[in-house]
């Protein structure tokens, strides 16, 4: 099969699903897992890669002279290379392993933010940020007397880019931070355009790619960003591992975030010299098995083809939106299907999202209910909470059917 054929043939989600042990496990009611935006399930390939590390080459990396230590180091660095290549990095040195997106953004806020920002500077974020790309900047803003500004959203749940030139106009903005795909609305944001305007105004661009790297092809060069944060557990990999990509010259100029072993070249009692990239930012023993597992997740996603994974997400979300519109009293949040990824949040008249989720759970349907770590967004939308269904490569249309059936049931339970 030629590459072009691979890109057009659609994903066989049923065959994919067979490769995920959680769906093969015996249970009283079949699992209808519609919470992949919170965390994805893990294929055999990822679990086996981690088992292989622990079972055959478990040793600390970058230190041991013996064979398995060298093999462990090679496997860890090989995972980095594959991940760097996956997101379009020019060099694996630009890819720092972190524990997740939150840790990656905090790394930028501490190491870059505290060395670059001073009183009177400003940071532009968006109203639809996950708390992970909001709270670290609030802490910095309070500490350094930096102003936070926000790109608002339109009625259809898209960023109101008409507001951006004004937000950037006074030249005080040093950083623009935006989520690539909203974890609530599913909106795919025009990062390249935002980055272009940020750069023209002399600001750096940070992208929270937690929901994009796992679901669609990404290329940090094409996006034109400077910092790019993502997490492994949403992309079929294990928890506890994620990454920060940043332009090499920025990383070179940044002071370390955490001090300790591995991040140093030379230590004297009164001072130290830092290690080179990327290890300058990887203090202490890293989650080695998790990094190797994430490397296996990248291989797995590549074997599926990210174009096809995204097409599958979008097919399902379009089907879900069509079916959800049949449910009386249901309000869909966010933009039309052509402008979103595989996430759909909604509210149901007179039934709190928690109650919706409880009724659905009774049918084995797992959805998220609450504010999804985006309280300011819910405030902007004028709803205290929402229910959310989200998909990945193993999601099936009948899971959407089960969701819709469960929602009709919830309406019945509460219609007394």
């Amino acid at each position, binding site marked *: 099969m030629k590459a072009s054929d691979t890109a057009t043939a659609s994903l066989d989600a049923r065959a994919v699903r067979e490769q995920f042990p959680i769906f093969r496990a015996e249970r009283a009611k079949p699992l209808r897992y519609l919470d992949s935006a919170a965390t994805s399930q893990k294929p055999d390939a990822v679990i086996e890669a981690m088992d292989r590390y622990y079972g055959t080459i478990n040793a600390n990396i970058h230190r041991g002279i013996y064979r398995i230590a060298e093999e462990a180091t090679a496997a860890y660095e090989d995972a980095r290379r594959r991940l760097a290549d996956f997101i379009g990095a020019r060099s694996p040195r630009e890819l720092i392993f972190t524990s997740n997106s939150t840790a990656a953004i905090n790394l930028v806020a501490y190491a870059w933010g505290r060395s670059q920002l001073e009183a009177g500077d400003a940071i532009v974020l968006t109203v639809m940020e996950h708390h992970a790309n909001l709270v670290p900047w609030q802490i910095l803003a309070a500490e350094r007397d930096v102003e936070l500004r926000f790109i608002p959203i339109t009625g259809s749940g898209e960023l109101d880019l008409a507001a951006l030139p004004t937000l950037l106009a006074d030249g005080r903005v040093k950083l623009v931070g935006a989520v690539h795909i909203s974890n609530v609305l599913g909106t795919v944001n025009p990062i390249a355009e935002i980055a272009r305007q940020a750069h023209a105004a002399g600001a750096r661009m940070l992208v929270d790619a937690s929901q994009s790297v796992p679901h669609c092809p990404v290329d940090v060069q094409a996006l034109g960003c400077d910092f790019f944060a993502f997490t492994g557990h949403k992309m079929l990999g294990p928890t506890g591992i994620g990454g920060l990509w940043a332009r090499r010259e920025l990383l070179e100029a940044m002071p370390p975030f955490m001090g300790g072993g591995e991040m140093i070249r030379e230590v004297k009692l009164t001072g130290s010299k830092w290690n080179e990239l990327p290890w300058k930012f990887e203090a202490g023993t890293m989650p080695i098995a998790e990094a190797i597992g994430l490397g296996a997740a990248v291989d797995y996603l590549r074997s599926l083809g990210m174009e096809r994974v995204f097409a599958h997400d979008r097919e399902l979300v379009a089907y879900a939106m069509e079916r959800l519109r049949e449910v009386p009293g249901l309000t869909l949040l966010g933009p039309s299907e052509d402008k979103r990824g595989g996430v759909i949040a909604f509210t149901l008249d007179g039934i709190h999202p928690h109650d919706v989720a409880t009724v659905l759970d*009774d049918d084995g349907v797992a959805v998220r209910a609450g504010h999804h770590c985006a309280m300011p967004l819910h405030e902007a939308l004028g709803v205290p909470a929402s229910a959310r269904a989200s998909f990945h490569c193993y999601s099936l249309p009948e899971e959407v059917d089960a969701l819709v059936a469960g929602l009709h049931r919830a309406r019945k339970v509460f219609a*007394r």
Partner: protein
Amino acid sequence: MSGASGGGMDDLYREHILDHYQHPRNRGTLERPYITYEDTNPLCGDRIRMDLNVRDGKIDAVRFSGTGCSISQAAASMLCEAIEGKTLDEAKKISRDDMLELLGIELGPVRLKCGLLALKTLKAGAYGMTQWPGEDEDA
């Protein structure tokens, strides 16, 4: 307590829970409350405000307002009903077990917070109490 939804969905959404949720007693606010206090359940976004008027040590009016799931709102409605006309001392003695008995359903660890929010708000507002008498704060 067993699973997340206790004894299952049908047990959770019993008639009286839905009745209090859909036809809440004492919903609203008081104009010049003697005591007013608001608390939230940050996990779910449930929000409850309790307003009390007290005359001669007796709760002669109580109202609750806020948003949240059926369990949190029904619990607030039931609690209001239970304390109206009682003395502050009597209301003070209401324990979490009493509250759960009023609800009459089994709650898993997540929904327990919903079920106890109203009582927690009342206790914090009326007596500055942040934990249940004789128990850990693990509410």
